[in-house]
């Protein structure tokens, strides 16, 4: 390789210092089985283990699919077959007072283990479903949704979730 290219690469590496910090991904896919897809910006993506997850991603599993995701705040979400959730919000920046995690669950089965956002700001953690809102205080829970209401766009019609003391 010519020395000029080497110098360029070295300079570029210095600029790409570790303080490049984080991208805007919200987590990673960690487990995968069967038919699993991600809808992102009107495209369908086949996820890979280690692949990044972003806000507004829709995670979808087929009849034989299951998937597990770990979020940047240690929240663990896993889906069984025939499931669909959308990651509506994820903010994990305590110094800027930005803390929130909101999922919309349309159908299927989900197991949810809450993470640091729930410890720091439990009122900012929510799972919205066609029939109810779920409020969370540092905990593990499971949800099954029949999901036979095609008119539910994910917009909240139901009442506000009561806060847990």
């Amino acid at each position, binding site marked *: 390789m010519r020395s000029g290219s080497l110098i360029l690469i070295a300079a570029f590496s210095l600029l790409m210092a570790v*303080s490049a910090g984080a991208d805007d991904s919200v987590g990673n896919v960690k487990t995968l089985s069967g038919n699993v897809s991600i809808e992102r910006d009107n495209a369908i993506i086949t996820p890979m283990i280690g692949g990044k997850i972003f806000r507004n991603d829709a995670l979808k599993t087929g009849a034989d699919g299951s998937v597990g995701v770990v979020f940047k705040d240690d929240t663990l979400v896993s889906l069984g077959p025939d499931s669909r959730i959308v990651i509506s919000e994820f903010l994990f920046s305590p110094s800027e007072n930005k803390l929130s995690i909101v999922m919309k669950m349309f159908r299927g089965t989900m197991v949810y283990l809450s993470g640091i956002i729930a410890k720091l700001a439990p009122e900012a953690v929510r799972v919205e479903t066609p029939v109810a809102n779920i409020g969370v205080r540092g*905990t593990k829970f499971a949800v099954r949704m029949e999901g036979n209401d095609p008119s539910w766009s994910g917009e909240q019609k139901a009442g506000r979730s009561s806060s847990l003391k």
Partner: protein
Amino acid sequence: MVSLKKLCLAAALIPLLISCASQKNLVVLLPEEGGKAGAVSVANKGGSQVIDRANQGSSIDSAEKQPSVPEAIDPKKIDKIFGHALKAQPRKPLHFTLYFEFNSDNLTAESKVVLNSLLSEIRVFNPSAVAIIGHTDLVGTSKANHELGLERANAVGKILVSSGVNQAIIEVYSHGMDNPLIRTKGNEPRNRRVEAVIR
């Protein structure tokens, strides 16, 4: 054979402990490691419930009808409904805490040992990401501490890179003074830490 519907109508007159909600929409509180459970609330236009005992669940028939009073659910049934999702649950991220010598960019002797464990775990586990988070104590302003935390996190990031960790998986953050280990104002050394999270 009496239909469930007739049984439910009868139950309205007779105080039987039958759950008349089908469980097609169901929220179940699960025990965490160590058997403890937290709590969830389930709320809609019809009302709300709080589930605060493990293996109890509440059914929701519709967005207008109050969720059912929480009741115990057979763990075998929980496994049957949620088995696939439970099996797909990822491993919890691993956390390592590193401390610096006072006013210095050098790790303490104990933390050098922790660093070796961290590096070894990264090699074995081949993580998707290593998040490095700088924290400070509660002395000073939020902004200044945010910057201080970032400096410390970057220092650890550089150590990891020079120890061979792929820079592409390293993420550097600062939580400043806003995510303390020990909630006490002032000079608490245990808050002045850098956290490395392998996920």
